[in-house]
C-alpha cells in the first residue's frame, strides 16, 4: 500500500520528521518498506512569468526571454522552445537547479552559461522534465514548455513559488507492507487510525454525508442477491446528469502519490474512495443496466464477459464465478473488474454506483482463474467488512456533490440479508499480562484499545473493536493489540527454565558418526533437490519397479516433477556438472532422503534417509569407493560382505558389489557407473564410482558399542603364500577358504595380484600375508607348518596351487 503523506495529514497531522514516522509505524505493526519524496530529484524550480521575448541575433531558432521569477530583477533565459508568449507562466529551473532528462533517463543539472554568446541563467521546462505526464496537465502540449495559464488552479500560482508545491508534488509516498490480516490498513483511513494510535495524535474523521435530490431510486432500479453466501451486502446508488471531466488537482495529486493515474472525475472518485476507505467500488453506465435490474448470481455455463481491461480477452465464465448481471447478461466479475460494455464513457449521463461485499475466497479463486488481479480483488480476497460498504458509497456520493459532477438520488438501495451483529469482548487485563509476561496497568490497556478506535466500557470491561477490524476475535487478539501499541520492545525479557531435556535419537547420533567418517575420507557434502525429472530414472537405468514415484500435480517443470526414489540421478547430475566445470577429480557425499510411494496415493509415502557417495578423477578406482564403504562399515561395527552384483544396470556389470551384513541383509551397493549411464550424462572419458547405503538398515546392523580387545602378550608369526588359480576364482573365495582352515589366523592380508609371464594363460596369481597368533603361547614352527599344510591342502582341493 502506497500512502500519500498529504492525504494522511487530512486525517491525522503526522508532521514529525518522516524518519520518525516510518520508524514508529513499523514498530507498531505497519511495516514500512520504503519511502520517497515525490519531488525527488527536482531542485530549485520555480513558477516564472515571461516578461518579454526577442529573437537571438545569431540564430534562427533561439529566443531570448526575460522572466519574472519573484526575485529583485528578472532572469534572462535563452530557449529554443517555440510555444512561448509574453505573459506565459512556466516552470523555470534556476542556476544550480535539477530536473529530469527523460530522453536519457537521467538527472539534468542546470547551470548558467552562454548560448551563442548570450547569457542564459537557467532553463524553462516541460512536464516531462518535471517527471509528470499529460494526465497531470491535460490541457498542455506534450511538446514544448509547460504553459500553466490554462490550469484550473492558475489563479493560485504565485510567481517565484516552488513548482513542486504549486503543482502538488511536494509530497512523500510511503510504501507499507500490510499483513494479510489487516485489509483495513490497505487504506488511508486505516493507516490514519494506526498513526493515531501509534503517535497519540488527534484524528479528524467525520462520517461522509450527501444532500441528494428527491428521487425514489426503488422505482428505477432493483437489486437481487441470488447467492447470499458469496455476497453479504449490495448497495447501489444512482447519479444523474453526469458531467465527465478532469478531477481537481488535490484529488489527482493524492491519487498520483498513491500510484494511481487520474483518468476522469467519475473513475477517479471510485479509485479515491477505495484508497481512502479501503473498500472497492464500481460504477455502471445506467444505460446498460438492462431491465433496470441488478442480479448478483453465479455465472451460467456458456456465458462470456469482456472485461474493461483491454489486454484480457473475452472471458468464458464458469458457474463457480460470481457475476453482477443485468436482466440478461453479466456486467461485471464480482469484486474483480467491470465489463467493457457497461463501463463509463465520455457520453455517460447516468451512473449506478456499487458498493458491495463479496466472499474473499471466491474472489481470489475467480481472479486466479480469470488471470486478472486488481486492486479491488486483492482487497476483497483478504475479507472485507460489509459495514464499510456504506461509508465508501456515502463518501463517493459526497465527492460527486463536492466535485459537482452530477446529481445524487437521495435514496440508496441496500440489500443486506444478515447484517453483522455488534461484537464485543471482555478485556481481562490480568490475563493479558499473564499471557504476555508483561505488567501493563489496566488503565493503559483500555487507553490503547480506545486509541485503536475500540469502544470501551471500563465498568463492564467490555471492549468492541471498530467494525473494520474483523481480525479481532479472541482475548489473545486483544493481547496482541495491547502489546504492539505498548511496544513489543518495552515488554521485559525472561528466559524460561525448561523442564525438558535434550534427547537425541539413535538415527541422529548415527548420522553424526557417518558425517565424521565421510569428511575424514575427503568427501565434500552436497545438497541436491528432492524432486527430479522422471527421465533421471531412465538415464540412470534404474529398475522399472523402483521408478514408481510420488508425483507433483503442479510442478515447476518436467525436470522437477517427481519425488526421487533414488539419490543416484541427483548425484550423476552434479557429477556431470562438476566435470563440465573442469573439476577434474572429486569426492562427494550426501545424506539425502528418498520418497517411496505407499501404493495408495492417499497415504503418505515412506521417507528414508540414504547415504550416497561418488568419487571420480585421477587415481580413483573401484577400490577407492569400496575402501570408503569398508571404512564406514568397519567404523560402524558392521561385518560387511561384498559380493559381485551383475544385475544392477546402473553399474558396470563386472565392477559392482552388493554390500550385505553378516546375516545377508542388503545394506547397499557400490561400483563403477555403467558407461551408458555416464554417457547419458555426457560423461565419456571419466569413470565414476558410486556408493549407496540405506541408513535404516545400517543402523540396525551397526554394533552398539565398540568393545576393547586386550593387546597381545605373545609374538605373532607371519607366512606369505602365493597361489595360482583360474582367472574366474575371486579373492573372496580364496580368502574364505584360507580363513576357514587357518587356525589361529589373526589377519589375512592380500597384497598382490599377477598375470603374465610364468603364469599359464587364463590363470592368475594372488599373494597373501597370513598373520598367526595364539593368545596363551607362542606358536611353534611345527604348529605353523601343520596349519599351513591344511590350508594348502584345502586350496588344492579347489584346484588352487602354490606358485612355485
Amino acid at each position, binding site marked *: 500500500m502506497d500512502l500519500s503523506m498529504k492525504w494522511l495529514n487530512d486525517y491525522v497531522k503526522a508532521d514529525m520528521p518522516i524518519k520518525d514516522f516510518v520508524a514508529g509505524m*513499523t*514498530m507498531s505493526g505497519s*511495516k514500512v518498506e520504503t519511502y520517497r519524496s515525490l519531488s525527488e530529484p527536482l531542485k530549485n524550480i520555480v513558477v516564472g512569468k515571461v516578461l518579454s521575448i526577442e529573437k537571438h541575433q545569431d540564430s534562427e531558432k533561439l529566443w531570448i526571454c526575460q522572466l519574472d521569477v519573484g526575485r529583485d530583477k528578472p532572469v534572462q533565459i535563452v530557449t529554443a522552445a517555440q510555444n512561448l508568449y509574453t505573459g506565459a507562466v512556466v516552470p523555470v529551473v534556476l542556476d544550480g537547479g535539477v530536473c529530469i532528462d527523460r530522453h536519457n533517463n537521467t538527472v539534468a543539472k542546470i547551470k548558467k552559461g552562454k548560448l551563442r554568446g548570450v547569457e542564459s541563467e537557467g532553463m524553462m521546462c516541460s512536464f516531462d522534465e518535471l517527471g509528470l505526464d499529460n494526465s497531470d496537465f491535460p490541457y498542455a502540449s506534450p511538446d514544448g514548455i509547460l504553459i500553466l495559464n490554462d490550469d484550473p488552479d492558475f489563479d493560485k500560482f504565485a510567481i517565484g513559488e516552488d513548482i513542486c508545491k504549486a503543482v502538488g508534488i511536494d509530497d512523500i509516498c510511503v510504501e507499507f507492507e500490510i499483513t*494479510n490480516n*489487516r485489509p483495513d490498513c490497505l487504506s488511508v483511513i486505516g493507516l490514519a487510525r494506526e498513526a493515531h494510535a501509534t503517535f497519540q495524535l488527534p484524528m479528524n474523521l467525520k462520517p461522509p454525508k450527501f444532500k441528494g435530490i428527491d428521487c425514489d431510486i426503488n422505482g428505477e432500479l432493483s437489486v437481487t442477491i441470488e447467492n447470499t453466501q458469496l455476497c453479504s451486502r449490495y448497495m447501489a446508488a444512482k447519479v444523474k446528469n453526469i458531467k465527465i471531466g478532469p478531477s481537481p488537482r488535490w484529488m489527482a495529486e493524492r491519487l498520483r502519490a498513491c500510484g494511481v493515474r487520474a483518468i476522469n472525475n467519475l473513475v477517479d472518485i471510485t479509485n479515491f474512495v477505495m484508497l481512502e476507505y479501503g473498500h472497492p467500488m464500481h460504477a455502471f453506465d445506467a444505460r446498460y443496466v438492462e431491465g433496470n435490474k441488478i442480479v448478483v448470481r453465479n455465472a451460467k455455463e456458456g456465458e462470456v464477459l469482456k472485461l474493461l481491461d483491454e489486454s484480457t480477452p473475452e472471458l468464458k465464465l464458469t458457474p463457480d464465478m460470481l457475476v453482477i448481471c443485468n436482466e440478461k447478461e453479466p456486467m461485471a466479475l464480482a469484486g474483480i473488474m467491470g465489463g467493457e460494455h457497461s463501463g463509463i464513457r465520455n457520453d455517460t449521463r447516468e451512473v449506478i454506483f456499487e458498493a458491495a461485499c463479496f466472499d474473499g*475466497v471466491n474472489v*481470489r479463486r475467480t481472479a*486466479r482463474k480469470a488471470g486478472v488481479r486488481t486492486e479491488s480483488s486483492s482487497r476483497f*480476497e483478504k475479507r472485507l467488512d460489509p459495514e464499510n460498504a456504506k461509508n465508501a458509497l456515502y463518501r463517493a456520493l459526497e465527492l460527486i456533490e463536492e466535485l459537482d459532477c452530477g446529481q445524487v438520488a437521495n435514496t440508496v438501495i441496500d440489500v443486506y440479508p444478515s447484517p453483522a451483529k455488534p461484537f464485543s469482548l471482555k478485556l481481562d487485563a490480568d490475563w493479558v499480562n*499473564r*499471557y*504476555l*509476561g*508483561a505488567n501493563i496497568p489496566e488503565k493503559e490497556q483500555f487507553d490503547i484499545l480506545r486509541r485503536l478506535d475500540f469502544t470501551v466500557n471500563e465498568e463492564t470491561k467490555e471492549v468492541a473493536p471498530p467494525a473494520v477490524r474483523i481480525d479481532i476475535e*479472541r482475548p*489473545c*487478539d486483544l*493481547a*496482541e493489540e495491547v502489546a*504492539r501499541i505498548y511496544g*513489543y520492545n518495552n515488554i*521485559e*525479557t*525472561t*528466559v*524460561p527454565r*525448561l*523442564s*525438558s*531435556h*535434550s534427547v537425541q*535419537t539413535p538415527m541422529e547420533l548415527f548420522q553424526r558418526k557417518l558425517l565424521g567418517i*565421510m569428511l*575424514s*575420507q*575427503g568427501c*565434500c*557434502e*552436497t*545438497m*541436491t*533437490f*528432492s*524432486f527430479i525429472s522422471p527421465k533421471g530414472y531412465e538415464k540412470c537405468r534404474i529398475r522399472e519397479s523402483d521408478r514408481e514415484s510420488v508425483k*507433483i*500435480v*503442479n*510442478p515447476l517443470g518436467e525436470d*522437477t516433477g517427481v*519425488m526421487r526414489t533414488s539419490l543416484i540421478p541427483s548425484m550423476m547430475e552434479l557429477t556431470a*556438472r*562438476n566435470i563440465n*566445470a573442469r*573439476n577434474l577429480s*572429486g569426492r*562427494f557425499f550426501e545424506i539425502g532422503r528418498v*520418497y517411496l510411494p505407499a501404493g495408495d*496415493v492417499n497415504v*503418505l*509415502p515412506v521417507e528414508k534417509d540414504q547415504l550416497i557417495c561418488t568419487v571420480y578423477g585421477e587415481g580413483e578406482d573401484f577400490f577407492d569407493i569400496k575402501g570408503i564403504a569398508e571404512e564406514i562399515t568397519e567404523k560402524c561395527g558392521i561385518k560387511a560382505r561384498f559380493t559381485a552384483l551383475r544385475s544392477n544396470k546402473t553399474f558396470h556389470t563386472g565392477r559392482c558389489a552388493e554390500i550385505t551384513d553378516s546375516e545377508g541383509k542388503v545394506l547397499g551397493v557400490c561400483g563403477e557407473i555403467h558407461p551408458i549411464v555416464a554417457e547419458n550424462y555426457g560423461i565419456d572419458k571419466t569413470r565414476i564410482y558410486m556408493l549407496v547405503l540405506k541408513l535404516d538398515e545400517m543402523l540396525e546392523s551397526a554394533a552398539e558399542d565398540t568393545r576393547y580387545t586386550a593387546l597381545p602378550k605373545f609374538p605373532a608369526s607371519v607366512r606369505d603364500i602365493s597361489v595360482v588359480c583360474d582367472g574366474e576364482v575371486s579373492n573372496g573365495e580364496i580368502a574364505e577358504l584360507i580363513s576357514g582352515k587357518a587356525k589361529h589366523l589373526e589377519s589375512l592380508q592380500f597384497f598382490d595380484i599377477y598375470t603374465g609371464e610364468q603364469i599359464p594363460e587364463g590363470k592368475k596369481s594372488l599373494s597373501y600375508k597370513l598373520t598367526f597368533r595364539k593368545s596363551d603361547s607362542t606358536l611353534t614352527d611345527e604348529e605353523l607348518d601343520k596349519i599351513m599344510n591344511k590350508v594348502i591342502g584345502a586350496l588344492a582341493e579347489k584346484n588352487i596351487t602354490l606358485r612355485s
Partner: protein
Amino acid sequence: MKEQLNSIQQKALDEIKNAVDIKTVDDLKVRLLGKKGELTAILKQMGQLSAEERPVIGQLANQVRECIENDIGRKKEQLKALETERKLKKETLDVTLPGRKLEQGRRHPLNIVLDDLKEIFKGMGYSVVDGPEVEKTEYVFDMLNTDEGHPARDPSDTFYITDKIILRTQTSSVQIRTMLANKPPIAVISPGRVYRNDEMDATHSPIFHQCEGLVVDKNITFSDLKGTIEVFAKRLYGNDIKIRFRPHHFPFTEPSAEADFRCFKCGGKGCPLCKGEGWIEMLGCGVVHPQVLLNCGIDPEIYSGFAFGMGLERVAMMRYGIDNMRLLYENDLRFLKQF
C-alpha cells in the same frame, strides 16, 4: 721411558688435532691405546723399571692415557657436531614449498549453520525432531489456522500431490505432530526441508530449509519468547548483538512478531546488506495461538507456548556473504571447498 711417553702424547695430540673424520680418530685410538697399541707396548716394558721408577712412570702413563682419551673424546664430539651440521645442511629443504595434507571433506555451508543452531538449542534443553516432507494438508495448514481458501494453500504457492497431501511449506507440521504425540512440557526444534512453488533465482528456491522451534509448558509467555530469541542471537552472533521485535502476522501465533538483528556488517548505520535499514529480518515468532493448542488436544487454559522459525539459507548467505542462492544447490566443488 718418560721421554717416550711424552713423545707419544705429543704425537698423539698432534695427530688427533689433524684428524678430519671420526674414523681416523677411532683408528688412532686403536693404534695408540688398543691392546696392541703404542702405549700398551710401552707399559709392557714397565717390568724392566726399578721399584722407585715404576709408580712414577705408571702415574705418568696413566696421565698420558687419560689425556689422550680425553682429547679423543673431545675431538670426536667436535667432529660429530660438524658431521651433523654438514648432514643437516645437505638436507636443507625449501620450506616455502607447499605442504602435503591428508585432505578432509567439507561440510555443506547450510549444515554448518544448522549444526550451530542445533548446538545452541540443544544446550538450552531442546530436542531435535524430524517429520515427513510429503505431508497432510491437515498438519501443514488446517491445524495451524490456515483454512481452505487461504492464499498460502494456493497451487501457485504450494506443491500438491493430492488434494490432501502436499510438500510441506513449513516445518510447523512437525510441531503439530509433536504436540499430538507428546504431552507438555515440550521443547523442540524441527529443522528440515520445505517447499514453495517459486522458480529458482538469486534469492528464491523451490526447496529451502527452515529451523523452527516450539516450547509448550505452563506459564510460557511472550516475554519468555523474547528472552529465548535474545539468548539464541547472542550465542550465534556474540554478546554485542542487538535485536528488536516488530509486530507481524502469522495465522498460528498471536501475538506474532518478526525479530530483526542489528546489521552485523554496518552495526546499524545502514549498508547494502541491510538495505539501509540498519536491521536485518532474521526470524518469525509468536505465542502459539490457543486454537492451535486446542487443535492438538492441549488445554490452552493450562498450557501456553511460543514458536519461532527461520530460514537457514538466509542465515548461511549472510554469514558467508553468499550473494546467489543457486550456489547452495549447484554443488560446484570450487564452492563446496570454501567452507
